């Protein structure tokens, strides 16, 4: 037995207060003459002993009341010696139950899902728990949702919440749940503290294991107990990717969709039928994957044809298995009638074949001139000086070929255009003065890389510099990782500007400059690993800069057979980046700017869970623009948003689950057991603030780890609540007795 606040025991001196009051009352006597002394005498003599006993009893009760209150404030606790593992066993416990409700928990064993198993286990635990135990309940996916936020002994409430809990379609991150659990237990020191994690223990859920260990080391008094549901090695075949590939999805143009199918089971799967359907209609294209090895992912391309412009949903499906939710995957595509491209040329006065945008225009619209009018990609070529005067927002893409010194107004117009969602592609050329460019702050900020030359002039290579052959990692050029698609190593550059890629800003990009949308990416490099094309997001648009010309003047790229593919994929990529907002993760908010005419109008929604249209919101203003915003995106699948009674959706978007959720393979048991045992002396990875591999080998345990490992006294039970209750009872008894004594004689 010990006290959390022993200093308060000084207050025990207050026990003397009732005695003093009693004595003062005895001394503070009033006097009166009295006639009926005979009766008073009789009464007093008859009841003298009883009065003394009652007085003494009341005095003792009052003293006991003071003593109980002082003891309660000193917070007496019962301590017991436990080993360093955090303690376990019977007796009351203050627990936080973390119930993994990520999508993978809906994996079934043929009878019941992992989530149902988990709920049963929790109910069992609640039934067997000590009556004085308390528990909180959190649902954990990639976030922690409190069902019962603070530990409570209302187990009925807990059982009810466990019954009501549902599987989400979110990813897994146990670290979030663990953090929330430690937070919930922060003020509880009375009972044994425990965090019980009911999870399927899929590997991605433990991705932040190092961070979890640090949390564990910082809270050595809390025992963490994972309860793993489901068996390892269960089969699961999943569609882990679905995205449009190649060019711009346009009306009556074949749109290639890349579908990735992964086998997370332990056996080879053969004959997997993959289909795609548009807008919920019957499948429009299909293929059969002959074989997928365990752990392998196979990609396949299927084609969709869209007959109308606008938003469409595309659903890819494979045959159902025991984790049904990842057997379909939905994406949304914005199909366009036309894509308007503006080409600004540095030397428009030349013959067409010598014009800076000639090859580019042909690559953009690689069809005969008689069909040009019906082609979805409409190009307009103008002189570079006219670019700044054009209404750029009427174009989807702007190419600058061989730009010279750009006037401030043009740079400003281009910057605004890109910030508002436009795409800008720059091919430098002989007129490009890199010194002037680099001294232009606005232009330098706009570009993803700085152009560097030889004293302001392009670098002239003795031997033409070739592009890389393999290991492309940008979506535009990954096609050429497959040798069957040809090679870009035959692309040569005799003159070029060196592209010095801007440093990565990481998560600080937004903080450093709100216009910067992310880090630059290299589209292609030379064989010597020098970037030759770089792109990055700027505002809500993108900027691409090449190191060489769009004419055969400095490079043979325009003459290479891959040039058309590069340009088409570039246009498709830039278009898809604008359309990327059409695919969300569960819980993300869908936002799309709409015409100001629609401001204040109600819109309705058809969601994966509700097939009937229901009013879902109103179009409001965001950053000065009318914006269609929809937040209830917890379910995966296609969402259609309609304006009023219109039958054509105003917007369609898809919500896709984290592909990692389909990986139902479990974390190694040894690792989970090691985590459950808690940090050990010498486990530097768990206790140090750094988590690098070198840190793990550090031999000296931190004080926290040493404390956790040694046997120590643990607070077993606090008695202050009990004492308060007893004090309350004493107050009631004293009041009743005092009242009774004064009238009972």
């Amino acid at each position, binding site marked *: 037995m010990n006290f959390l606040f022993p200093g308060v025991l000084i207050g025990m001196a207050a026990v003397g207060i009732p005695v003093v009051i009693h004595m003062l*009352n*005895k001394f*503070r*006597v*009033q*006097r*009166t*003459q*009295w*006639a*009926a*002394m*005979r*009766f*008073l*005498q*009789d*009464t*007093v003599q*008859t*009841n003298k002993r009883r*009065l003394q006993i*009652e*007085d003494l009893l009341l005095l003792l009760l009052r003293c006991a009341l003071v003593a109980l209150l002082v003891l309660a404030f000193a917070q007496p606790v019962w301590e017991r010696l436990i080993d360093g593992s955090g303690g376990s066993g019977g007796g009351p416990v203050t627990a936080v139950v973390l119930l993994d409700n990520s999508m993978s928990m809906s994996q079934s064993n043929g009878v019941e899902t992992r989530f149902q198993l988990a709920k049963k286990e929790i109910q069992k635990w609640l039934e067997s728990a000590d009556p004085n135990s308390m528990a909180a309940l959190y649902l954990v996916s990639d976030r922690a949702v409190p069902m019962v936020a603070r530990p409570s002994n209302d187990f009925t409430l807990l059982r009810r919440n466990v019954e009501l809990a549902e599987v989400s379609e979110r990813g897994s991150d146990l670290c979030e749940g663990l953090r929330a659990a430690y937070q919930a237990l922060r003020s509880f020191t009375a009972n044994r503290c425990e965090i019980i994690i009911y999870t399927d223990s899929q590997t991605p859920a433990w991705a932040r294991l190092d961070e979890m260990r640090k949390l564990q080391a910082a809270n050595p008094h809390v025992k963490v107990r994972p309860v793993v549901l489901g068996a390892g090695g269960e089969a699961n075949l999943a569609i882990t990717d679905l995205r449009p590939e190649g060019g711009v999805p346009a009306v009556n143009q074949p749109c290639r969709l890349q579908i990735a199918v992964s086998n997370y089971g332990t056996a080879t799967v053969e004959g997997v039928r993959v289909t795609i359907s548009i807008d919920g209609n019957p499948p429009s294209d299909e293929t059969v994957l002959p074989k997928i090895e365990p752990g392998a992912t196979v990609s396949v391309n299927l084609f969709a044809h869209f007959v109308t412009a606008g938003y469409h949903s595309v659903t890819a499906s494979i045959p159902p298995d025991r984790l049904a939710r990842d057997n379909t995957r939905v994406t949304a595509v914005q199909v366009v009638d036309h894509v308007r491209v503006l080409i600004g040329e540095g030397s428009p006065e030349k013959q067409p074949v010598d014009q800076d945008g000639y090859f580019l225009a042909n690559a953009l619209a690689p069809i005969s001139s008689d069909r040009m009018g019906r082609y979805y990609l409409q190009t307009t070529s103008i002189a570079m000086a006219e670019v700044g005067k054009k209404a750029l927002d009427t174009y989807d893409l702007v190419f600058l070929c061989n730009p010279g010194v750009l006037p401030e107004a043009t740079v400003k117009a281009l910057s605004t255009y890109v910030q508002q969602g436009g795409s800008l592609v720059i091919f430098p050329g002989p007129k490009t003065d890199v010194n002037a460019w680099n001294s232009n702050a606005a232009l330098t900020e706009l570009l993803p890389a700085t152009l560097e030359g030889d004293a302001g002039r392009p670098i002239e290579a003795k031997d033409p510099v070739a592009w890389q052959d393999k290991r492309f990692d940008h979506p535009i050029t990954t096609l050429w990782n497959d040798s069957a698609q040809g090679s870009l190593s035959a692309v040569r550059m005799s003159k070029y500007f060196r592209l010095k890629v801007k440093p990565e800003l990481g998560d600080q990009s937004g903080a450093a400059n709100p216009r910067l949308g992310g880090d630059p990416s290299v589209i292609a490099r030379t064989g010597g690993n020098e970037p030759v094309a770089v792109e990055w997001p700027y505002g809500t648009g993108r900027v691409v800069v090449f190191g060489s010309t769009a004419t055969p003047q400095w490079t043979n790229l325009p003459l290479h057979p891959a040039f058309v593919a590069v340009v088409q994929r570039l246009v498709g990529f830039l278009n898809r980046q604008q359309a990327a907002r059409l695919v969300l993760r569960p819980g993300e908010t869908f936002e799309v700017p709409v015409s100001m005419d629609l401001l204040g109008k109600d819109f309705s929604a058809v969601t994966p869970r509700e097939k009937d249209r229901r009013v879902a919101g109103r179009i409001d203003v965001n950053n000065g623009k009318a914006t269609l915003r929809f937040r209830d995106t917890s379910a995966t699948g296609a969402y259609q948003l309609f304006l009023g009674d219109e039958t054509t959706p105003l917007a369609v978007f898809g919500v896709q689950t984290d592909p990692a959720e389909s990986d139902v393979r479990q974390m190694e048991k040894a690792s989970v057991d090691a985590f459950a045992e808690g940090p050990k002396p010498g486990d530097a990875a768990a206790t140090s603030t750094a988590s690098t591999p070198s840190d793990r080998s550090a031999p000296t345990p931190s004080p926290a780890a040493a404390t956790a490992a040694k046997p120590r006294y643990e607070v077993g039970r606090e008695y202050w609540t009990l004492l308060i209750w007893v004090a309350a009872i004493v107050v009631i008894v004293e009041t009743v007795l005092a009242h009774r*004594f*004064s*009238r*009972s*004689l």
Partner: protein
Amino acid sequence: MSNSYLDPDAISRGEALGILARTVVEGYRVGEHKSPFRGFAIEFAQHREYTAGDDIRHLDWKVLGRSDRYYIKQYEQDTNFVAHIVLDGSSSMNYGHTSLTKMHFAKALAACLAYLVLIQRDAITLSLFDTETREYIQRTDNLGKIHHVMNRLAAFDSTNATAIGKALEDISRKARSRGIVMIISDFMDTEADFDKGMQRLRFSGQEVIVFHVLDPYELTFPFTGSWRFLGLEGEDEIKTSPADIRKAYLKNFDAFRARIRGICEKYQAHYVLADTGKPLAEVLSGYLAFRGMVGKGGR
């Protein structure tokens, strides 16, 4: 009648006490009552033959039964009666939770009764006693002597313990003819002595009216906190917490009152609780109204 008439200083002066008595009594007489003590002493004189028109209530039924003749009983003229006012002057009567003590109240009551009797031309005697009779005013039916009576009442100062048995014995000895004995006391004495005294009075043919004078604090015992009680008749002091013993005390005290009332009933005496917390007129008129209702002497 208001309590202002019971100003202790006023009661200490005979003249004021007389004014008080007159006011109270005259106030009572203004109503429909005549005299509550009228026609007390009636003596048989002779018979005469019945003639038509005589009240048959006066027909002597015994004579009729024996001789079959109709005779009417005739009586002597109503004679004056003597009211013996016996006032307890012991120290215990000096208690009062305000400056108005039981003694003050009892003096005022005695004065009122004396005035009431004298004004209807009956006679009174006044006896003030503690351990023995301290003051005694001989029989008088002269209203002019009322001032003398009042002055004696006002001048009396109580100092000793009570011996009511002895006082009542004296009265029964002194009262030769039948009359009304009005005892005004708190009866803080042994009930056995009181019983014995009452027995003597009844044997001597006296009608007895008992005015039990008590302070409201004696009746309710409303003290809180710790108190030291000092006996007025030389008892040892008692220190106690009245709230703790209130119920027991009241039980004891009620039993005492019940015993006094029981003795009164035993000897067919009227028992009147004179609560000094109530106006004197209320106490007096309440009793006189009661007396008027039950008839002469209560018999």
